[in-house]
């Protein structure tokens, strides 16, 4: 029998005006597994993650963390256990790199010495420790993404929510940072556009289309010829752990 799910999503919907962004989505995340969230543009991947890191409130349905309803947990308590890599454009200035990474530990209320140590360690993982005192205003898009990744690595929550973690990252850091997350064997829910990257990391995928969960399970099973044509609108097939695409449908 499978272990108790760490996160249970039941019948979650999100409506904005007349648009339905998520429609009755239900799934469970088991402890220590890496889940991929797949789907074409506008499928509802980001909306779902936003609800999970509590930047949006679901119009219907409920979420439970270890069997406890999320709305009964304090924001800070929840944030300490469920960390998120967020897609949000921002122009930083006036804070140095170390300070930004330290903010990632805000939910934990640690003594300042430990905050400094953990943030310094995370800054080393993203190869920016030699620039720790620099103003974050001067970072490129990829460097900024690494910095926010470092916040999450310093926090090391029970559940990692990653909204397109490879965004802006060069190849080296795409693999390096996701490898670190994978090695930690925490529960991960990550949205991907790059199927190749998803294959490498995900134990299981969930396929969203038009706000509905249309498939869940092993990647080769979920992404069969029919679902590739219906959701991604490509003619392709999964063979030997690789996605071969002939062209658009």
């Amino acid at each position, binding site marked *: 029998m499978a272990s108790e799910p760490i996160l249970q999503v039941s019948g979650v919907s999100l409506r904005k005006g007349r648009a339905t962004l998520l429609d009755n989505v239900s799934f469970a995340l088991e402890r220590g597994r890496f889940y991929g969230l797949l789907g074409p543009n506008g499928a509802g991947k980001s909306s779902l993650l936003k609800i999970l890191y509590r930047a949006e409130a679901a119009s219907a349905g409920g979420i439970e963390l270890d069997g406890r309803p999320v709305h009964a947990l304090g924001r800070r308590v929840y*944030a300490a256990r469920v960390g998120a890599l967020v897609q949000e454009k921002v122009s930083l200035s006036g*804070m140095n790199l170390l300070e930004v990474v330290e*903010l990632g530990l805000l939910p934990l209320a640690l003594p300042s010495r430990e905050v400094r140590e953990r943030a310094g360690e995370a800054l080393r993982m993203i190869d920016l420790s030699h620039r720790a005192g620099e103003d974050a205003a001067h970072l490129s898009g990829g460097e900024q993404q690494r910095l926010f990744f470092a916040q999450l690595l310093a926090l090391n929550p029970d559940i990692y929510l990653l909204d397109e973690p490879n965004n802006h990252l060069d190849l080296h850091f795409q693999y390096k940072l996701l490898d670190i997350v994978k090695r930690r064997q925490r529960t991960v829910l990550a949205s991907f556009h790059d199927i190749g990257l998803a294959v490498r990391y995900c134990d299981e995928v969930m396929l969203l289309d038009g706000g509905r969960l249309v498939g869940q399970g092993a990647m080769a099973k979920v992404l069969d010829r029919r679902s590739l044509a219906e959701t991604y609108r490509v003619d392709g097939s999964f063979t030997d752990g690789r996605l071969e695409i002939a062209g658009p449908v």
Partner: protein
Amino acid sequence: MTVASFRSPGLFALVVVALLLAGLAGVFWGTADLTWDDRYKALFRLPDAKPALQLIVWEWRLPRVLMVALVGAALTLAGLLMQALLRNPLADPYLLGLSSGASAAAAAAIIWLPGVFVSVIGLPMLAFGGAMLAFLVALGLSFSPGRNLDRLMLILSGTAVSLFFQSITAFFLHIAEPHVTQQALQWLMGSAAGTKWPDLLPLAVTLPLLAIVAFLCAPMLDAVLLGDERATALGVPVGLLRIGFFSAAALLTGLAVAAAGIVSFVGLIVPHLARLLIGATHRWLIPLALLIGAIVLVLVDLLCRTVLAPQELPLGVLLALFAAPPFIIILRRMRRGV
């Protein structure tokens, strides 16, 4: 470039000394023919102090200097909080219409409302009500259901609200008796002349309390600088923080306007100056900015008293003069996206 190379206890010591010197200059300027011994005796009310000097220092100068220091720090805190929570370097109590709301309420109180009513509620509370009303209207105009607050819309709504309340103020000034208009106008343009000790009370209580609360929330304010969603994901109650600190900014603005009329630009310029010196991290920024805000207004008030002595200039005149160049620099920096 490294952030905040000036971040050290030395800077704070320097700024505190500067504040004390500015305060002393504010209290004793124009008493040049007296010795420091006499001044010292008057300041500490020693038994052999000169009675006339002691009267000037204690009844005129000291309350006034303390008042402008409090007003400068209060408007700086209001501007700083708004800039952080809107992630917008142009946010300021003046630009969002809070000052205009407060002054319209105060003008109505002076010119139109029954005296009994005003004396029961008090000018500070009426001005706070005006600032809060202006803020709520600006918020309401920029709010659309189901969407996050659009920061640019809020600034534009604030400007519209500001214009509206300015016309109300103008209306009250127009219908009033000429001498009342003159009196109200002088006050509106900003002046702390004639401050009595009890006038200090509202700001002297409110400002330290709110400054401490803001200081304790400093890491959460830092997190908001990373973006609303990121801050939310870090467990920061962004909406609550915004409502709370916007109300605090309205309260500070209302009290400042009730005390000294419209004092523009301090809330805009001083936080920028402090940020250039020490970076945006709020546990450093808040104390430094408040000290600088106090210094700036004490010095500007001193200049207003002395430039055309024995006539006094309104605070707003000199402030606008000094604030225009930095304001332009901020605009240009914003355009470059720094």
